[in-house]
């Protein structure tokens, strides 16, 4: 699996289509909805909870290289990042920088 036609076919069938189908379904379902409707409030709740679920999942059950960083460091990094966001003018960028700094410092301390 390096390059060539087969790899691109896999990209389309196994990578692109299984993700894109959600966007197409979203267009089909979202087109007819009114901005002020009650259901759109519910959908906004579902979308936000799902994004939070993605956050929790990557921190608790991380993919690839992040798995080498101890769980305690990952949790400390996400908590400190959120705290940094709250304390530093509710800046998302500040939160990201604080979280990353704690992750890198923690991982280095545990010599990952």
């Amino acid at each position, binding site marked *: 699996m390096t390059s060539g036609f087969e790899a691109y076919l896999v990209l389309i069938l196994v990578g692109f289509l299984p993700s894109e189908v959600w966007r197409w379904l979203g267009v089909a379902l979202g*087109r007819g909805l009114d901005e002020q409707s009650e259901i759109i409030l519910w959908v906004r709740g579902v979308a936000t909870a799902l994004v*939070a679920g993605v*956050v929790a999942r990557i921190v608790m059950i991380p993919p690839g290289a992040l798995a080498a960083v101890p769980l305690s460091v990952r949790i400390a990094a996400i908590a400190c990042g959120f705290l940094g966001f709250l304390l530093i003018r509710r800046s998302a960028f500040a939160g990201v920088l604080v979280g990353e700094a704690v992750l890198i410092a923690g991982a280095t301390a545990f010599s990952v």
Partner: protein
Amino acid sequence: MPAAPSASPGTSSSAFWFGMRTAATSVFAFVIVFTYIGYGALAHDYGLSVGWAALSTALQWAGPAQVILVTGLGAGTSLVELAVAVSLSSVRLLPIVVALLPLVKREDSRPWQLVIPAHFMAVSVWVEAMRHAPGLPREQRIPFCNGVGLALMLMGTVATAAGYYLQSVLPAIFGAAAMFITPISFLTSTARNARLLLEKAALALGLAIGPVLAFSRVEFDLLWTGIIGGTLAYGVHRLWRKRSAAP
């Protein structure tokens, strides 16, 4: 941080450029570049070509799904299993597109006109669109979203190629740090956007329910986290509204 769009541009092409500028000054410019340098290096590790890696960013445009695909191909996971895993990791795209469309569509929008902004849609673009679109005239909202989406996608695609060639010089910690930027940026940017009690409750509930369902090996755990957390948050919102409306 971009200022609130007080001086709104006049035409759809200026709305598109305003979208691109918004993307360039967004926290997600940094997040996307960092993420995709890490992804490009990962694709190099797993022996894929640079063209494949860059195209996967433009086509999939969903970080976690891309990491699953590359590592799964490397581990020799069956393609059907892999397609299911990729799809489940991208379920979030459905509710974010549904939540965005009523805000940006016009009466006369044809489905194909919505498929393009929908392809650009990712949590990063969604966050910026939900933040700025309400301040723009309706006819400029789709061009604005396209501007944000195209700019971030171009940055992601170039960063993928850059990461691919930088793989050998990146420090060992880079891969872990690049993967961690997804959860920390999703968390802080959705928290920043959460103005309604509904959104704050949904965020807290998703963070609480997500790990429980994932660790108990529930099938479709992300989907259930969204539905249960979102429904409970909506319930909290209704209760609160009823109470504040009562005399």
